[in-house]
């Protein structure tokens, strides 16, 4: 029983910060937490619901939502979502098959930046507000760290800077897929989010 309580606090700590708990996390402890939630979901869910947090089950990842809250900070959310869109577009431009579980190397992107003008422009746009006047490697490094902080990727091999895309990447994609574009055939995309 004591053990169970401990995990609840740990899980709440992570999820309440807006982080994800992914099944393919690099950190073994996180992977264990995922497994733990999976096994104890019926016990955990009501606990969190009671204090106003809804435990959401993504595709191999968990996160929180707050269903009964007035939305005051719409502007912040939109800003963040727009940035995610930019980030997704950047990585998609780099490699079209990047999705959960995929790995990429910092230097591979750097190489692509050299020969792909669009990639170069996107990176500059992404970072110009935050870090103007830095070189591409620094900008890219900062961007990757930012995405890591958001919990979508993690460093797998520090020596050759191999990054792994976590299951939570799916969240960004789902968000994008849920958007409807006007004057396009309706059959194009099924509603998927949630």
């Amino acid at each position, binding site marked *: 029983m004591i053990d169970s309580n401990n995990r609840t606090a740990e899980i709440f700590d992570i999820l309440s910060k*807006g982080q*994800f708990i992914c099944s393919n996390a690099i950190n073994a402890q996180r992977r264990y937490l995922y497994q733990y939630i999976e096994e104890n979901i019926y016990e955990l869910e009501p606990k969190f619901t009671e204090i106003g947090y809804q435990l959401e089950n993504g595709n191999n990842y968990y996160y929180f939502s*707050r269903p009964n809250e007035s939305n005051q900070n719409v502007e912040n959310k*939109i800003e963040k*979502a727009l940035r995610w869109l*930019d980030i997704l*577009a950047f990585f998609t431009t780099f490699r079209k098959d990047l999705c959960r579980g995929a790995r990429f190397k910092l230097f591979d992107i750097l190489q692509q930046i050299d020969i792909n003008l669009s990639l170069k422009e996107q990176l500059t746009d992404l970072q110009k507000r935050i870090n103007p006047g830095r070189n591409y490697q620094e900008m890219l490094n900062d961007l990757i760290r930012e995405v890591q902080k958001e919990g979508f990727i993690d460093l797998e091999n520090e020596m050759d800077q191999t990054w792994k895309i976590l299951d939570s990447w799916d969240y960004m994609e789902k968000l994008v897929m849920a958007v409807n574009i006007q004057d396009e055939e309706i059959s194009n*995309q099924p509603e998927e989010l949630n």
Partner: protein
Amino acid sequence: MAKFEKIEDLLSELYKYRKLFSGMFDKRMSPIQEEMVVSLVEHDTEKLERLAAFDLLFRNQGLISLEPRLQEFFEEFMEVDETVHVLYIQENLDQIKKNQSYYLKENQPSKRDQYLVKIKKHLYRINQTTLQNIKALRDNTDETYKTETNFEIKKEKLTDIRNQRDALEGVIKAVERVLQDDIFFKTAADAELQLIVHRLRLALNDSIHNLIEIQQQIIEYLNHIEKRVHVVEKVLRLKMLRDKHYLKERTNFYWIVGANQDLPLRKAEGFRTRLSIQDMLNEEEKRKLILKVREKQQNQRLLAQNTAGSISDEAFNDKNEIDSVFNYHALKRVFMGKNQDLFSFVMHHQFAEEISINKRIQLYCRLASLFEADFTFSEETGRFENLEYALIYPASNLTTANPQTTNTINDPV
């Protein structure tokens, strides 16, 4: 072109340069520089030339590779063949049919045996090739999906593998049909043939099962790719709309994000918790932590800047601060208990510190006005130096008062 006269010559040649061949087999993925292998032929490029002349090596502008026939031969025997040879099986099947027909028409027993041996050989080949093909197909599927980074090529390769798989299934079914329906295989008296056929049937059955699984795998991969294509298109399209500032007008992006109530999309909210004072007092560990924090803070210049300067001695000496505060209520209480007029009481009361006459007179006035209700103001007056004052007594004492007619106060006692 040079040609070997005998198999022994070929074998001895292969054996003589076995290190070279095995080294080149390891690097068969792409041609290698000649300089990398000259050490294996005693730095004699003429030897390489000779091997090339016998068609064992393929040389081209300083690059060198195994002759394709030799490579295939090695691959097959080492069972590392990466290509799927559907046609091999078909060819073997055709050969079987031909030999079968010869066999049935031939009357001489010795010749019939020759045909039978050939049939057995081809059956055996089919068995081997099929298993090999299945393995290669499976490996190729996984490898293509996992390692091919070019998205378009990946899709094409997987479609290709699917076609190969379909073809392989067709051929295997054809072989099965022949084994099943042909009267020849049912009636063949030869026990060895029966055994080979039996084994082949088992292998084919196994292969079909494997193929079904591979098919599911390929379909899954292709579906996955299809889904990726959708995602990629959507992302790039939305990005384009964003860059052109159409996102708000032509999509419901803002609405969806606004209605989203997930925590990841919001700024992280911090919880403020405070230390329990009880714990701080009771737990040794927490106390240590507090001391640690304090020590850390001592190191900071900021803290030093924030401290006030030392209090000057003057501040400690200034009596005014203390003198200005009388405890009026306490004084009144004392006075009420005394049988004395207020003025004399104030003038003679022993304060902790020396009080000037002026202060005492002020105090007299203050007390008189503050507690007017509790005092009795008599008609008589007293004199002190050039002042005339009213004789005031505690209210209850009035009757027993022992009025002093003249009060010329000298020094305090």
